[in-house]
C-alpha cells in the first residue's frame, strides 16, 4: 500500500509532496477573499486550517485542488509550481486527492464503482481486489462494494469518498469539512480512522474545518484563517497555550478573561499579579485557560494564599460542573471544574493560579 507506483499516463504522481503557498491572494469581483497567504505543509504531515464560515477556508482548499486559480502568489506542490504567474495546472492534472463535504459520491454508481473510478486502465484488471483493499483501509466491510451510495450512512459515505480519493495514491490529500455532517459520537471515531489511514499511507494532508476538537487533535500544524488572512500558524500546543490574539484564543478553547493593568512590567488583575510583560502599559486583558485556575473550599482560619470567592451558582454537567464565582469587590467569572467535590451555592472558595496568564492589549 505504501509503494509508489509510477504511471504511464496522466496525472502526475507527487509522492509525499510538500505544499508551499507563497503570497497567495484571491478576489471575487471587488471583494478580497484571501490575502497574503503564506503556508507551508511539510511532506507527509497533516495541517488543519480552521476558521469560521466566511473566513475563506473553502476557497483556500479550492485553490489547492485546482478548481480555482489564485490572483496573486504561487502554489508549489512537490517540486512543481501548479499555480502562479503564467502557470495554471487544472485539477485533473494535479494528482491531488479531494474529499468534499458530503463525500460527493457518484449517485449513479455502486460503492465499488465509485472507489474504482480513479483507477488506471492498467490497474482495472484486479480492480475488485484493489477496491476491497481500499475499503479495508478505511475500515469498511468489502461487502459494501455492491451497495449504492444512498444505502450507506453519512459516516460510511465519507469513508468511501476517502477510499476513492486514495485509490490514485495521491501525494496530497485535501479534506473539506469531511466530518461536519456526522453525529457527534460518530465524528470522533471516523476522524480517528481517517487520521490513522492517512498517517499509515504517509500522505500530506490538509483538513479544513470549523470544529475546535478537530483542529487540536487531527493535525501536526494548525493554521487559523480569519477574514482571508492567516492569523496564526503553529502546532496545536503552541496555538492553544500561546495564541497571538484574543479571537484565536477563544476559538481554540474555553477562556476566563479579566481586565488587567500592566505597570512596571507586572500585570495585575483581580486574581493578583498574574504575568510579567514589559511591552504593555496601562489597561490590558489577562486570559486564563480553565485548567489554570484551581479552587479549594475555604477552611476558616487557614491561610493558603489565593483569592477568596463565593459560589453564586453551580450547574451540574455530568463529569464537570459549571460554577459561577463572585470575587469580593471584583467581577464574577464562570469556571468549569471536575464534579468530584460537590460545591453548593454560598460556599466560600479560594482560587489559585497555575502558570502565567496570557496577556493581550486591551481590545
Amino acid at each position, binding site marked *: 500500500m505504501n509503494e509508489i507506483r509510477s504511471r504511464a499516463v496522466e496525472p502526475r504522481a507527487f509522492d509525499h509532496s510538500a505544499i508551499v503557498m507563497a503570497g497567495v491572494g484571491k478576489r471575487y469581483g471587488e471583494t478580497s477573499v484571501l490575502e497574503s497567504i503564506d503556508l507551508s505543509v511539510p511532506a507527509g504531515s497533516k495541517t488543519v486550517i480552521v476558521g469560521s464560515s466566511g473566513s475563506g477556508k473553502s476557497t483556500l482548499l479550492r485553490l489547492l485542488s485546482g*478548481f480555482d486559480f489564485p490572483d496573486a502568489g504561487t502554489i508549489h506542490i512537490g517540486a512543481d509550481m501548479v499555480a502562479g504567474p503564467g502557470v495554471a495546472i487544472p485539477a*485533473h492534472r*494535479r494528482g491531488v486527492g479531494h474529499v468534499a463535504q458530503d463525500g460527493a459520491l*457518484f449517485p449513479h*454508481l455502486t460503492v465499488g464503482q465509485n472507489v474504482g473510478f480513479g483507477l488506471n486502465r492498467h490497474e482495472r484488471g484486479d480492480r475488485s481486489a484493489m477496491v476491497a483493499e481500499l475499503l479495508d483501509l478505511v475500515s469498511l466491510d468489502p461487502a459494501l462494494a455492491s451497495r449504492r451510495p444512498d444505502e450507506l450512512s453519512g459516516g460510511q459515505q465519507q469513508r468511501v469518498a476517502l477510499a476513492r480519493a486514495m485509490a490514485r495514491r495521491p501525494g496530497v490529500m485535501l479534506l473539506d469539512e469531511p466530518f461536519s455532517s456526522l453525529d457527534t459520537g460518530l465524528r470522533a471515531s471516523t476522524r480517528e480512522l481517517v487520521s490513522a489511514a492517512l498517517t499509515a499511507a504517509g500522505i500530506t494532508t490538509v483538513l479544513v474545518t470549523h470544529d475546535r476538537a478537530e483542529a487540536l487533535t487531527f493535525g501536526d500544524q494548525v493554521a487559523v484563517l480569519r477574514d482571508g488572512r492567516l492569523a496564526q500558524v503553529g502546532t496545536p500546543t503552541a496555538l492553544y497555550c500561546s495564541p497571538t490574539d484574543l479571537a484565536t484564543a477563544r476559538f481554540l478553547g474555553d477562556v476566563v478573561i479579566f481586565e488587567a493593568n500592566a505597570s512596571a512590567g507586572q500585570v495585575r488583575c483581580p486574581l493578583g499579579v498574574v504575568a510579567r510583560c514589559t511591552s504593555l502599559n496601562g489597561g490590558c486583558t489577562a486570559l486564563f485557560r480553565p485548567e489554570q485556575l484551581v479552587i479549594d473550599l475555604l477552611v476558616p482560619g487557614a491561610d493558603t494564599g489565593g483569592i477568596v470567592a463565593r459560589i453564586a451558582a453551580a450547574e451540574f454537567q455530568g463529569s464537570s460542573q459549571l460554577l459561577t464565582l463572585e470575587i469580593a469587590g471584583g467581577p464574577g467569572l464562570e469556571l468549569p471544574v471536575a464534579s468530584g467535590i460537590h460545591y453548593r451555592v454560598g460556599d466560600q472558595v479560594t482560587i489559585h493560579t497555575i502558570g502565567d496568564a496570557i496577556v493581550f492589549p486591551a481590545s
Partner: protein
Amino acid sequence: MAAGVSLLGLVPLGYVVVTAIATGAPTLSALVFRPRVAELLANTAALVLITVPLCALVGVAAAWLVERTRLAGARAFAILLVVPLAIPAFVNSYGWVSAVPSLNGLWSGVLVAGLSYFPLVYLPTVAALRRLDPAVEESARSLGLPPFGVFLRVVLPQLRLPILGGSLIIGLHLLSEYGAFAMIRFDTFTTAIVDQFRSTFNGPAANALAGVLVLCCLFLLVGESGARGGARYARIGSGSARPAGRTHLGLWSPVAYIFLGVLVALSVLVPFSSVARWLVSGGFAAWSDRYLLTALGQTIGYGLAGALVTCLLAFPIAFLAVRFPGRVVRVLESINYVTSSLPGLVTALAFVTVAIRLVPALYQTSSLVIVVYLLMFLPRAIVNLRSGLAQVPRGLEEAARSLGRHPLVAFSAVTLKFVMPSALAGSSLVFLGIVTELTSTLLLAPNGTRTLAIQFWSRVTDVDYVGAAPYASLMILLSLPVTYLLFARSRSEKAAVNSL
C-alpha cells in the same frame, strides 16, 4: 375514491380489448395485417425513431449551453427556448405551412414535431442540471477526468432520468398528435384513425388501428421503464448551495450562438411571424369573427373546470402515495399513468362508445369531456402534488394539532398552504393541456361547442388561414403565462419539474 378514478382509467384500455374481441380474430387480422397498416407503422416508427433522439440531442445541448457555459444572453435564451411550449404543435405546423407551403412528408413532420417538442427534454434537463451537486463533478476532476470526460461519465448519467422521461413524453405526443401531421399530409396512426372515424364513426377499422396504436404506446412505456432501471439519482447528503461553475467557450462561442440562434428562429420566430402575417393581412375584420368570444369563453371555461376537477381528484392519490405508500397505491398510479399515455383520441373513442351504449345520459355532455380530460391529464397534477406534499414536514401538522387546532383546520392551515404552489403548477399544466387539446374535443364535444382549438381547425381545413390567425394568437396568449410558470419553476431549487 382514488380507486374510483383509477377504475375510470381502465375504461379506454378495456374498450380497446373488448372491441378487439368483439370484432373477431379473422376480421381483426384482416384489418390489422394489411399494407396500409404497414405503411402507417413504417411512418410512425420512422417519425418516433428519428425525432426522439434528435430532440434529446438538441434539448441536452441547449440545456448545457444555457446552464453551464458563459454565454452572454444565456438568460434570454433560457426563456426563448421554453416559448415553443406555448405554441400547440398544430399551430406550429400552420405557421410552417404558411411560410413554406410545399412542406410535406416525413422530414417535414420531423422538423415541425422536433421544434415543437424539444423543450420537453430541454426543460427537465435544465432543472436537473441546476440541482446537480457541483462537488460530485469536482471530485471527478480531482480523480483525473478531463472536463469532457466529466460530462460524459458523471453529468450525463445523472441526467438519465430527465432525458429518458422527456423522451418518453415526446414519443407519446408524437403518437397522439393529429392536427400537425394532417396539415403537412403525413399519415400516422392517429391521422388514419381520425379519417376512419370521420368515415365510419367508430367502425371496426378505427378500433383496430386504435388497438395497434395502444400497443405502440405500451411499447414505449415499457422501453422507457426498462432503460431507466432501478436507479435512484437523488442528491446524497445536504449538499452545498453553491451553483456549478460555468465553462468558457472561447473559440467555440460563435458556434454556440449560431446553434441557439437558429433553434430559436426556427421554433419561435417562424410560427410567430406567420401568425403575425395573417393577422396583419386580416386586419381588424378577422377579429370580429362571431365565434371568437364564445370560443375564448368556452376554452377558458373548460380549462378552469378541467384543471379544478383534475387537481381535486389528484389529491387523494397524491396524498396516499406520499403518506401511505404501498403496492396498492403504486398500482393505482400506474393505471393512471398508462391511461394518460394513450392518445386522447382513443380515450375519447372509448368513452363515446361507452356513453352511447351504457350511459346515454352522459353522451355529448360537457361532463364527459371533462372526464376524458381528467384521465388524460391526471398524472400532471399527481406528480406535482406529490412532490409538494413530500416537502411538507410531517411534524408540522401534528404540532398544529397539539396546539389545539382541530385536525381539519390543522390540515388546511399547514399542509394545504405548503401544497398550494405545487397544486398551482399542476393545475396550470392541466390548463395548458386542455387549451391545446384538439382531437378528443372534436369527438366528444356537445353540440354547439366551439373551443379555440376547434374553431382554429375548422378555419384551417377551409384553407382560411387568415381567419385562423386570431384563434391561433389567442391560444398562444392563453398558454404563455403557464409556460412562464414552468420556466420559473425549472429555475427554482426546490421544485421538481415533472412530466408535461
